[in-house]
């Protein structure tokens, strides 16, 4: 092992924190435009502190983390004024020196342990690999240490779990095992890249708790997420990244309580849990011309942007501490901010605040009070599910009840949310409602006629199938990759009797309805962004003119800001077309935002059902209370600002004359 000169250098820079990043640029040569993935990023992080890097995919947050373990890949160029860990200059590191650092002093936790742990090896072997590589314990002590690590991260029955493979563990347990493998050698710095994405809300809370304990034990934590709500409870400091740059940074309470950059505001507004149904999550689509290379990268999407923003990169503006929000955060009160110099934003107009932001609940037509909201439920139910059950046979021969005696009603134009954790049976219900799976018992009626259950024949149903459409979590998997958008939507339109000649116009109309340009007709699914794909999926679902759309986790794979746009789109389409939605999600925030009524499922059965406001305000079942308690909320006063409530905000800036 290379001897660590850390101690000597630490004497030379006594005041330097554990991690110093100053002026970091990362460029990928493979990128034809050669736009840096990370541009001029600077931050510091000390032991026992947590810095969160927040931004959408492609914002450079993951690349930044990979840079800190020297794993940006062979085609990247990393330059920095200073990149130092424990006093050692990382820019001068060779591969053998990196290896002494990786795992031993800096641990990396990725998202989704199902693929981030080697699926062919036992979790015990994966954890022991860190210990073995760095010779942390003698060979004879490997097993005992592995078990104690599993115990430490809260895995029950460690002896048994260590011998199991990732796919045999639940999502929460394998994420813990992944964390155990990253912290096995007791690293001083833990990089957690979306460690809770795709986890159920209660599991997410447990994993965040585990990371918090590492921080309390003195490790520095760099937390990376696209979701401000997730980092709110854990981060001491937050840096918001957009297009490779840190656009706002500062103590967590300041950034969350007094956000100054328009992008930070957009991210906060996108958190659905804090907004009631009807409120828009995404800012009104802004279609400014793209900024010039030297301009503010956010100018194209920013409601405040003007010519100056397009042409000149804003200077970093220090934001004075607002006393009312600062008091809440002891980490700031001790006067040691760790990100740069304190709260700062990269914006020409960072002080545009409350006066320019007006409460305007009904100003925007896109969603508002849809037909489902508060409407008396007098019409006949569109979908009647009565006492359905479904059992599946396990490979070992035993059978397992996936759905037990579930009943629900859905009225025309209404949104019914089904919420539950993975394995609660919500997707099985969706498949039965879609008529893709027959229930073992019970009946499903659609528009007053039998739809599922015994005695329903497929020929009767086939002609009516176009009235129920579906949107899935992963649209890419539901598209034929060789088809162009025109054909994907056109085929669906054909089932509604659109003639071949009229198909192009109909596809263009549908694309416009979902907020896409008709120019995209010639694209293939792989050439679309995640948000565009989901919009195409929605257009395809709308094409046959359905009465009901079953949405199975439609926004779970999307960034918060894209998720907000899709949720707004669905709300708008519902009020415009009066289509009913059966909305399935594990995310209570999303469910709260979209639903009129909700059904809470656990282990295949309904544990609670009711009006959404009622269930969220006064949950009757213990399980519902447990779920609600685990929902992360941004801390810092933005959850329900007394002066704004849950209303929509419209930014009415008059850009200064150029």
């Amino acid at each position: 092992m290379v001897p660590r000169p850390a101690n000597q250098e630490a004497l030379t820079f006594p005041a330097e924190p554990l991690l110093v990043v100053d002026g970091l640029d990362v460029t990928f040569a493979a990128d034809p435009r050669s736009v840096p993935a990370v541009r001029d990023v600077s931050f510091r992080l000390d032991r026992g502190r947590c810095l969160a890097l927040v931004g959408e995919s492609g914002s450079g947050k993951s690349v930044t983390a990979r840079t800190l373990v020297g794993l940006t890949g062979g085609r990247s160029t990393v330059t920095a004024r200073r990149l130092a860990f424990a006093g050692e200059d990382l820019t001068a590191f060779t591969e053998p020196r990196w290896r002494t650092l990786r795992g031993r002093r800096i641990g990396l936790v990725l998202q989704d342990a199902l693929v981030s742990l080697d699926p062919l090896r036992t979790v015990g072997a994966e954890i022991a690999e860190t210990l073995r590589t760095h010779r942390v314990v003698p060979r004879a002590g490997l097993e005992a240490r592995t078990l104690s690590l599993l115990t430490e991260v809260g895995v029950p029955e460690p002896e048994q779990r260590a011998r199991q493979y990732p796919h045999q563990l639940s999502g929460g347990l394998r994420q813990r095992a992944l964390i155990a493998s990253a912290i096995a050698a007791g690293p001083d710095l833990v990089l957690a890249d979306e460690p809770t994405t795709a986890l159920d809300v209660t599991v997410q809370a447990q994993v965040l708790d585990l990371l918090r304990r590492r921080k309390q034990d003195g490790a520095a934590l760099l937390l990376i997420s696209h979701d401000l709500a997730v980092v709110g409870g854990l981060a001491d400091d937050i840096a918001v990244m957009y297009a490779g740059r840190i656009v706002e940074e500062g103590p967590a309470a300041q950034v969350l309580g007094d956000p100054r950059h328009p992008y930070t505001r957009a991210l906060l507004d996108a958190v659905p849990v804090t907004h009631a149904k009807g409120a828009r999550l995404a800012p009104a689509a802004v279609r400014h011309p793209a900024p010039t290379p030297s301009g503010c990268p956010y100018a194209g999407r920013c409601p405040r942007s003007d010519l100056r923003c397009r042409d000149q990169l804003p200077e970093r503006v220090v934001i004075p501490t607002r006393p009312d929000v600062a008091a809440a955060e002891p980490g700031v009160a001790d006067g040691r901010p760790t990100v740069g110099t304190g709260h700062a934003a990269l914006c020409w107009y960072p002080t545009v605040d409350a006066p320019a932001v007006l409460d305007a609940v009904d100003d925007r037509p896109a969603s508002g009070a849809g037909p489902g909201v508060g409407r008396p439920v007098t019409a006949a139910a569109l979908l009647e599910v009565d006492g359905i059950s479904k059992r599946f046979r396990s490979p070992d021969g035993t059978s397992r009840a996936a759905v037990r005696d579930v009943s629900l009603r859905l009225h025309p134009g209404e949104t019914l949310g089904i919420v539950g954790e993975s394995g609660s049976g919500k997707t099985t219900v969706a498949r039965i409602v879609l008529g893709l799976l027959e229930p073992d018992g019970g009946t499903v009626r659609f528009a007053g006629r039998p739809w599922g259950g015994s005695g329903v024949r497929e020929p009767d149903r086939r002609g009516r199938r176009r009235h129920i459409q579906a949107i899935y979590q992963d649209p890419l998997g539901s598209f034929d990759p060789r088809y162009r958008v025109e054909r994907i939507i056109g085929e669906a339109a054909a089932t509604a009797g659109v003639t071949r000649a009229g198909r192009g116009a109909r596809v263009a109309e549908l694309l416009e309805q979902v907020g896409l340009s008709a120019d995209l007709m010639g694209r293939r699914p792989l050439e679309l962004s995640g948000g565009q794909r989901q919009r195409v999926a929605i257009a395809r679902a709308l094409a046959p003119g359905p009465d009901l759309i079953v949405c199975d986790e439609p926004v779970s794979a999307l960034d918060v800001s894209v998720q907000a746009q899709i949720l707004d789109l669905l709300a708008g389409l519902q009020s415009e077309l009066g289509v009913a939605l059966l909305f399935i999600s594990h995310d209570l925030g999303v469910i709260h935002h979209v639903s009129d009524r909700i059904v809470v499922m656990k282990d295949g059965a309904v544990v609670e059902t009711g009006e959404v406001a009622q269930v969220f305000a006064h949950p009757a079942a213990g399980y519902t209370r447990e779920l609600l308690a685990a929902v992360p909320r941004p801390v810092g006063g933005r959850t329900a600002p007394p002066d704004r409530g849950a209303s929509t905000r419209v930014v009415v800036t008059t850009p200064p004359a150029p």
Partner: protein
Amino acid sequence: MTALGLVRAVGIRLAAAVAVLFGAATVAFAALQLVPGNPVAVLLGPATTAPPAVREQIRVDFGFNRPVVTQYLIYLGHLARGDLGQSYQLQRPVSSLIGSQLGSTAQLALAAIGLAVVIAVMSAVATAGRPRLTAIASTWELVAVSTPSFWLGIVLLTFFSFRWRIFPVAGSQSFSSLVLPALTLALPIAGVLAQVLREGLEAALDQPFVVTARARGLSRTAVRLRHALRHAAVSLVTLAGWLTGTLLGGAVLVEVVFARPGIGALTLQAVSNKDMPVVIGVVLLSAGVFVVLSTLVDLAYLAIDPRLRKG
């Protein structure tokens, strides 16, 4: 897996094996009936002057005078008892003929496949994910795949046996006589295996767990050997199993070039002499070998990928 489940799985396997062998035997019998020519003439050889009475006696002895269905059932009955019949030409039981040749063929086939796997693993592990090295390695692999094995054998013989006299020209007595034929068979196979293995390795190296493994401090080579290789091994095992089957059925050309005894040489002789019992014996041997190998390959899948294990 429960004991009952294991018994069921084994039972299904055995039934499938019997079905495959039965099918192969039936096809071989049908082919025998369709081959033009009189078996008695084949039995007696081209230069015979046997009188008609002798010919008739042979017809009765071998059952050629009975209806085809009866002949088929008798043939199946013999097979069920493990009796493959007598060679027309050599007047010896087919099973002992095959048995005497199988050892030499198995030796060659296993040596060749073993060598091929070693070469393929080295070539693929060293070059996967490294574009420049991959370009060099794929060139030799392509050349190896496209080279006819008999020509390669002759070239190797020319240099290593005739010019440098390192290895013997022919025979199967010593280990050194195995080197050149094994290498001749192994090089083209190694080329194919290396290409498949490299593709599998590159797919595995793109997976997120590779980042996790490297973030633990593992070297690139360690990640390849301890993680990625196992992921790529599934396609390697599939292909290697199939190739071993074809080799055990007899590597005719290479056995002839190197004048080695073996199933290939036996088959060649039997086919050119229309010695149908021997041909049928070789067909059944090949079918049996494939049944055994596909079972081994399936077991290897379970050993490699725990996700395929049930229960």
